[in-house]
């Protein structure tokens, strides 16, 4: 039974999947005045970058038994669509369970028999939706150290929405393309952030704060005098690339000044080879091993140890990262000088912000709606041209352009392959902050910090209730490690060791649950078999820029959202030309901002008047006292 009206079945662009990149594209297209139909087979927004409440999270991680409360019907299998939403199913039969095993077994040819208009052809898509997360496991009380875990579990499951757990947690640089787009588009109005409170490095001597400003370096308790000099000298020597001005806070500098601080320009007077190795450059600078690690891992947030098998950090990339970090530093004042922002409730919230913007600009939304076929129109010259798609309810959508998340557009019987780079992830819920202090914060663990050394650097993102990710009194740690080699039998061994090391520091800390999985983005190039009719057709659509496929959230960088806006802009540009305005400020947002400033001005004037009136009446001392009393 069709739900969409005839009018809604006509779109300029259909978007499949509600991950961050797809949602940005959808918003941009709608904002440009074109009709968008945005579908997702799942029941919730966010695609592979979604943020889940506890029960959905556990079901996803594979242990459905643990997600179940007495009397409800959560089913196994990590398919969030199997979770019950009683109300809707009762009132909206068409939305009832979406899994159709029968169709899965039907050969491609049979399913192509779907009725299509004259001159059109249908190409079947795989009914299976696979994900880029593998080897998922979830355990309560993994170290069997807790008394009363049952009670705790029930207590947490009673309010599962107090959790918002990211599958692929992401931070944003305070000054970045993405933040600019959020502000300009108006999506920022829907969002709140927490600033990162601190970054630490776990070394053999314990958790150390990385000094980031001149005075911090001066006062630092861990660095030797020689190291302090080395560090200051280094900062001074990279001035031509990343102005050391930035080491002062941007608030002092003024935003305009800070904005001018850009990444590397040209070849340098210092003779730095931009394509040369950053490690080698740091060695040349006579920095101690420890300082090299600090700069590489905790400031550049580089994901790889200097092992041959791993990608190497070039000076160019390092300076870009240094620039991003430093120009965001201290930008937002107020106790937090750290350059990174965590979106409240996780990155899934950001994609939902974009979907709202899209909806506000006439975008039509239907979750629980899967595309079963692509439709093609035969042109006069005999070629097939993308003309739309068919939904699981049999609605025929007319659209000449399609954007699809990698996992939404799989060809039947063609197993998707993963790229070799992957990220090992572990998320634990703890009873006290693993990084020693409350607040959203980051810790990096260079390989040599532990003995024997780790295979690769480990990053730890600590979250607490201030980020909306977990209830008050609990702490989340997202541990991750990038890798290239075959995961092997014990892919999470390093993450476990780092956790153990952190927990050693506070023996009373209980680990309430542990979830582990591999994030293996699929190889976009081998998604379909081009020798088949369907695969060949999709490949052609891709070349003719009628179809854009969005890759899975990247495994590397593990914790930064840097690619999405860029990808979205590229896709939007490939459809409508680079000169099309990408998410310009909506009129009503501009008006609101204007009235906001006027209001502030008015408020200021009122205060001035009140003060003047008061001064005229009373001696100044008295007025001060009165104000104090009021407070």
């Amino acid at each position, binding site marked *: 039974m069709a739900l969409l009206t005839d009018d809604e079945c006509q779109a300029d662009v259909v978007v499949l999947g509600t991950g961050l990149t797809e949602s940005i594209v959808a918003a941009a297209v709608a904002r440009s005045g074109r009709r968008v139909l945005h579908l997702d087979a799942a029941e919730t927004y966010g695609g592979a970058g979604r943020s889940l409440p506890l029960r959905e999270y556990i079901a996803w991680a594979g242990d459905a038994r643990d997600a179940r409360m007495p009397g409800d019907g959560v089913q196994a299998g990590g398919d969030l669509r199997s979770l019950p*939403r009683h109300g809707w199913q009762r009132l*909206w039969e068409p939305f009832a369970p979406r899994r159709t095993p029968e169709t899965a077994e039907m050969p491609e040819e049979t399913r192509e028999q779907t009725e299509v208009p004259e001159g059109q052809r249908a190409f079947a898509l795989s009914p299976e939706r696979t994900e880029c997360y593998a080897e998922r496991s979830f355990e309560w009380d993994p170290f069997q150290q807790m008394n009363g875990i049952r009670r705790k579990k029930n207590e947490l499951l009673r309010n599962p929405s107090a959790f*918002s757990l990211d599958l692929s947690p992401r931070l944003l640089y305070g000054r970045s393309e993405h933040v600019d787009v959020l502000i300009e588009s108006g999506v920022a109005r829907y969002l709140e*952030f927490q600033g990162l409170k601190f970054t630490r490095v776990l070394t053999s001597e314990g958790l150390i704060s990385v000094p980031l400003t001149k005075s911090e370096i001066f006062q630092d308790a861990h660095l030797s005098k020689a190291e302090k000099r080395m560090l200051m000298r280094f900062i001074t020597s990279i001035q031509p690339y990343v102005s050391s001005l930035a080491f002062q806070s941007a608030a002092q500098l003024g935003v305009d000044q800070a904005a001018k601080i850009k990444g590397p320009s040209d070849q340098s007077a210092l003779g730095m080879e931009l394509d040369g190795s950053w490690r080698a450059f740091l060695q040349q600078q006579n920095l101690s091993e420890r300082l090299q690690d600090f700069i590489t891992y905790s400031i550049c947030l580089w994901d790889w140890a200097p092992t041959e098998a791993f990608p190497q950090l070039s000076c160019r990339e390092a300076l870009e990262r240094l620039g991003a970090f430093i120009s965001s530093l201290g*930008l937002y004042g107020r106790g937090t000088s750290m350059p990174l922002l965590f979106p409240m*409730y996780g990155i899934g919230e950001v994609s939902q912000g974009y979907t709202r913007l899209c909806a506000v600009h006439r975008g039509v939304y239907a979750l629980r709606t899967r595309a079963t076929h692509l439709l093609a129109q035969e042109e006069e010259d005999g070629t097939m041209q993308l003309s739309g798609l068919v939904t699981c309810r049999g609605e025929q959508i007319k659209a000449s352009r399609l954007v699809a998340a990698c996992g939404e557009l799989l060809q039947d019987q063609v197993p998707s392959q993963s790229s070799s780079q992957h990220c090992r992830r572990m998320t634990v819920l703890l009873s006290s902050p693993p990084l020693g202090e409350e607040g959203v914060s980051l810790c990096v663990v260079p390989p040599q910090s532990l003995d024997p050394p780790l295979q690769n650097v480990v990053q730890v993102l600590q979250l607490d209730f201030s980020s909306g990710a977990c209830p008050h009194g609990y702490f989340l740690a997202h541990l991750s490690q990038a890798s290239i080699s075959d995961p092997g039998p014990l892919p999470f061994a390093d993450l476990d060791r780092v956790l153990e090391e952190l927990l050693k520091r506070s023996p009373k800390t209980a680990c309430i649950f542990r979830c582990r999985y591999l994030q293996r983005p699929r190889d976009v190039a081998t998604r379909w078999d081009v020798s088949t009719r369907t695969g060949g057709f999709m490949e052609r659509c891709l070349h003719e820029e009628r179809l854009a496929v969005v890759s899975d959230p990247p495994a590397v960088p593990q914790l930064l959202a840097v690619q999405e806006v860029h990808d979205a802009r590229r896709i939007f540009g490939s459809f409508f030309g680079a000169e099309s305005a990408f998410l310009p400020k909506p009129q*009503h947002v501009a008006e609101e901002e204007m009235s906001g400033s006027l209001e502030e001005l008015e*408020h200021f004037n009122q205060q001035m008047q009140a003060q003047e009136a008061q001064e005229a009446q009373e001696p100044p001392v008295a007025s001060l006292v009165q104000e104090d009393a*009021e407070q």
Partner: protein
Amino acid sequence: MSAKKKVLLKVIILGDSGVGKTSLMNQYVNKKFTNQYKATIGADFLTKEVMIDDKLVTMQIWDTAGQERFQSLGVAFYRGADCCVLVHDLTVPKTFESLEVWRDEFLIQASPRDPDNFPFVVLGNKADLESKRKVTAARATQWCKSKNSIPYHETSAATAQNVEVAFQEIARRALKQEHTEDPIYLPETLTLNANQQNFSNNRPMGPDCAC
């Protein structure tokens, strides 16, 4: 600072498509009504300042932007709501039957700390179409009573009947809720502010804020 104290209340309006959610907002805020139905587009949120017991509060009324049509409102939409307005069209019984689902949906998604006492207000809209009425006041009142006594108003976005009264109640209940939520100290969050391309602190007016 005694001059102006800003309290921001988030109010969301739920109900089936076509019951008059957008019309009610527009009638209340802009004192306008149009008879032509088009599925809502271009609606984000409307703000209105109201005085409640000498207190100036800013009500931010969020329209569903049409995402409710296929039950596709994400959890982000519900977050931080201080009051939830449930609207039905009293000429269409199905829209009244949906209220139960909308209420459940809200409680699941927004998961307020104290679901039993979360403020809802039910509006039976299109009261000007008395001759076509299909949902009696008694039936609506009874349902509201069974849900921990939700206040019920019959409104007309067309004639503005009861609209002001209903939104006064909504604001009052939202304000009360705002005071009871967040008993735990919540660290301030950052919002990206376009005026300064900089951050300002959000929610400066927690219940425990002394200023």
